[in-house]
């Protein structure tokens, strides 16, 4: 990890920490690095591919439930930069987990497939981002309820 900048290091740390259960970091790190090795066969610069994949999944707008006069509205708002990355990684891992349940193959294969799909602007996580943006654009008429 010598020649990476701060943001790239943070991204790899987040990738490992997000999937960690019961503090078993070594186990998750092995899965993430195996995924990186798989990605290295298809693309030379793995970190660039990973960053681009996460950037393609990052949502810009999201909806927040706001109660106004006894009615709950979905009010669109801007997503903070840290939360964008958090949501992107969460969705990628969630999609990989879904694939694993569906096709009964190892998690690193599923994660590899999902990251490649995200890089090519398709896949489950990309669809989820599209759904969120769709919901925000549907409720754009309630944007004036936003106070934050």
């Amino acid at each position, binding site marked *: 990890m010598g020649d990476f900048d701060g943001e790239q290091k943070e991204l790899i740390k987040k990738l490992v920490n997000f999937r960690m259960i019961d503090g078993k970091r070594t186990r998750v790190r092995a899965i993430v690095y195996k995924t990186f090795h798989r990605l290295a066969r298809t693309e030379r610069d793995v970190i660039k591919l990973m960053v681009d994949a996460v950037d393609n999944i990052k949502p810009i707008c999201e909806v927040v439930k706001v109660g106004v006069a006894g009615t709950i509205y979905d009010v669109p708002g*801007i997503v903070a930069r840290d939360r964008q990355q958090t949501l992107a990684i969460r969705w990628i891992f969630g999609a990989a987990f879904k694939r694993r349940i569906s096709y009964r193959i190892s998690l690193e294969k599923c994660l590899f497939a999902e990251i490649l799909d995200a890089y090519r602007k398709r896949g489950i996580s990309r669809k989820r981002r599209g759904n969120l943006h769709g919901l925000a654009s549907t409720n754009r008429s309630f944007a004036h309820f936003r106070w*934050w």
Partner: protein
Amino acid sequence: MGRKAGALYINPKKFGGVTKPCMIEMVSFLNCLALNKQNDDKCVRQKDLLVACAQAQKGRPKNAAKTINYHLQRLARDKGI
């Protein structure tokens, strides 16, 4: 439209611009998405404007402008209404 606190008239629109940052950019981006059937590859310009605006808001203090209710309470405290 405004509200009176004692002899002082408060216009709530005055605080609107500060408390709701990037409103215009966000609405234009969402309108673009609605027009292009959620395909944000065609809304690159609006997206860049929104991201730039969001980045500019980063250094702004959280409670730069307090709400109108805060100002009304403050004035009521001072006047003893």
